[in-house]
């Protein structure tokens, strides 16, 4: 029995429900999520939790024991809040599948004063290979110096530099002697190749010396090159790090690093990845990243999403922070850090078959978000949200919520460049050119003159060379991505 779980919410019933009410709710849940009828990846987990909840609540003695524990823990007053908006609330009954977009915002339950100011357990893993020579390494050093100055006494900092091998420049410690730390950073010289695995492994070892759920445990990897042959080992290490509650963020400088690899590395921990065009922007990006980590409200957030039968989950995309499409398998899906300053926003696309449904309420599926709220006494938090729409026989005029439309309009741009890359990977260059031209048109419509020109250049480049230019590919990807975070967060 886990008093942290709100079994009533999981079964979708009120706290004072009768035994008959429980039984009916359980039957309904089984029809929606039983593995025999629902093969969706999240459904297995949701049904397992429903079973556990029913086992406890259907036993009179265990239920009263649970109620007593739960009232002590203060259940029903979650510190996390989900805000849901749908592209429409009414669906006309049709014999063909229909599309429903759902935007979920995850944020602190209270409006202000809830940034936990959790201490950081931070490791900077820095590339000092030959290609970093000159301005890049100089800018990197001064960026790190600034971070050292910004660290708070309760934070823990470690710094690892790597090329062919890794070296622990600064072992994990409270930054009480910033001067010495900065001097050590200054000793980095450009030499050798880029072996990211070595750097990551040494970084994780430093993080683990103080790894604790009181901290925001995070590795920031900064590189300008490709790692050869050890990608798989790096990804494996990132997954291990994630299991131990450590996040990884990647920052790539210039054109030569491997973006899909860095994305995969970061997303397997719920972290983020960024493209830095010029060396002098390193400081700004690094500061932003670390400030947002320091403003963490909850850590190690996870998402479970289970559509009911007759509904398919087509895609999940994180809109903010650090937009990226999330893989729906395996579940739970790592979401990383929930900021106290701006909500985490997710866009879901469902395909719904309404043909056999009667008019009235239609159950779409369940969203289940769990996270460890930093600083709160009740650390593990979980919110369950059931999604429903109404089936009608006549068309209903509805205006989609402005926030959802805005997010979607930018998401479409990001997807166009994604599809162009897929087409190139599949050898369909005519399709890739077409997608890039569409992307250019939409970017111009959005007033994104520079990115639009970049898309046009790439369209021409693809038709001539059958590939994207290294620089253009990254510009478009991270450029369309950076359009996504919405201004004016926190207004609901």
């Amino acid at each position, binding site marked *: 029995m886990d008093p942290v779980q709100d079994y009533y919410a999981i079964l979708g019933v009120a706290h004072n429900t009768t035994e008959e009410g429980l039984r009916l709710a359980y039957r309904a849940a089984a029809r929606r999520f039983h593995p025999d009828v629902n093969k969706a990846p999240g459904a297995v987990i949701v049904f397992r939790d429903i079973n556990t909840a029913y086992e406890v609540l259907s036993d009179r003695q265990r239920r009263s024991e649970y109620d007593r524990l739960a009232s002590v823990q203060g259940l029903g007053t979650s510190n996390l809040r989900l805000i849901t908006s749908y592209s429409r609330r009414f669906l006309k009954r049709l014999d063909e599948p*229909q599309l429903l*977009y759902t935007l979920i915002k995850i944020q602190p339950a209270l409006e202000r004063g809830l940034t936990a100011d959790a201490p950081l357990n931070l490791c900077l893993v820095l590339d000092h290979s030959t290609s970093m020579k000159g301005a890049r390494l100089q800018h990197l050093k001064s960026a790190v110096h600034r971070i050292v100055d910004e660290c708070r006494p309760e934070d823990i900092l470690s710094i690892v530099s790597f090329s062919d091998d890794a070296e622990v420049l600064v072992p994990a410690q409270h930054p009480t002697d910033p001067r010495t730390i900065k001097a050590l950073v200054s000793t980095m010289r450009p030499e050798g190749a880029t072996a990211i695995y070595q750097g990551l492994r040494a970084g994780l070892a430093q993080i683990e010396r103080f790894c604790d759920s009181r901290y925001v445990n995070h590795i920031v990897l900064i590189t300008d090159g490709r790692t050869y042959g050890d990608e798989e080992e790096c990804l494996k290490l990132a997954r291990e790090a994630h299991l131990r509650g450590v996040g990884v963020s990647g920052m790539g400088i210039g054109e030569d690093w491997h973006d899909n690899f860095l994305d995969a590395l970061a997303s397997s921990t719920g972290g983020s990845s960024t493209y830095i065009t010029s060396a002098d922007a390193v400081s700004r990006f690094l500061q932003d990243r670390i400030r947002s980590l320091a403003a963490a409200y909850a850590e190690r957030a996870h998402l479970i999403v289970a559509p009911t039968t007759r509904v398919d989950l087509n895609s999940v995309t994180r809109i903010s922070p650090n937009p990226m499409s999330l893989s729906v398998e395996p579940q739970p899906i790592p979401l990383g850090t929930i900021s106290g300053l701006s909500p985490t926003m997710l866009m879901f696309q469902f395909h719904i078959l309404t043909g056999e449904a009667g008019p009235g309420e239609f159950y779409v599926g369940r969203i289940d978000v769990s996270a460890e709220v930093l600083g709160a006494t009740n650390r593990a938090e979980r919110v369950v949200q059931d999604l429903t729409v109404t089936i009608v026989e006549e068309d209903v005029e509805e205006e989609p919520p402005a926030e959802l439309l805005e997010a979607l309009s930018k998401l479409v741009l990001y997807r166009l460049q994604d599809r162009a890359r897929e087409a190139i990977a599949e050898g369909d260059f005519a399709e890739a050119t077409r997608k890039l031209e*569409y992307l250019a*048109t939409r970017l111009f419509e959005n007033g994104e003159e520079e990115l639009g020109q970049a898309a046009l250049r790439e369209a021409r480049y693809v038709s001539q060379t059958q590939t994207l230019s290294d620089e253009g590919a990254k510009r478009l990807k991270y450029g369309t991505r950076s359009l996504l975070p919405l201004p004016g967060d926190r207004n609901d």
Partner: protein
Amino acid sequence: MIKCPYCQHSMMEGALFCEECGLSLWEDAEGQVPTRKLEDDSDDFSVKSGWGTATFQPRNQVIVHVRDAAEPITITPTAEFVIGRRDAASGMIPDLDLTPHGALEKGVSRMHAALRRGEDVLSIVDLDSANGTYLNGQRLAAHQPRLLRDGDEIRLGKLVFHIYFK
């Protein structure tokens, strides 16, 4: 199913954006796409207030309005309708000869571009011309057809014309 008015891609009911070309279908639902009037003689063709229809029926003809020309040209595109410049030396004759409109000085190739009739659509393809084909300001990659819409601006080298579906 709903069809994107820009690229004719089919999508599910409830889609707010075209998955294929990124067009917002929501604005479209409000009917902001006026059909362009032919009498509109203003010179400001490049400022587009919306997109014309992409539907091109078998009985439709195309009116070609060359910039600064007095008379529009009406053509009936065949399956492959070549636009270019007549050249006595090589004896090549395009379906639409733009020589009277200064094709030579404006860099139009002999076989510059072609209109292609598809099922209820019309597209344009650049035939690897020396100075390029531009559709609404975008240069086309050679041999890759693009869908045409009522009111589109086409530029062959430096020669600009608009097309209207009739």
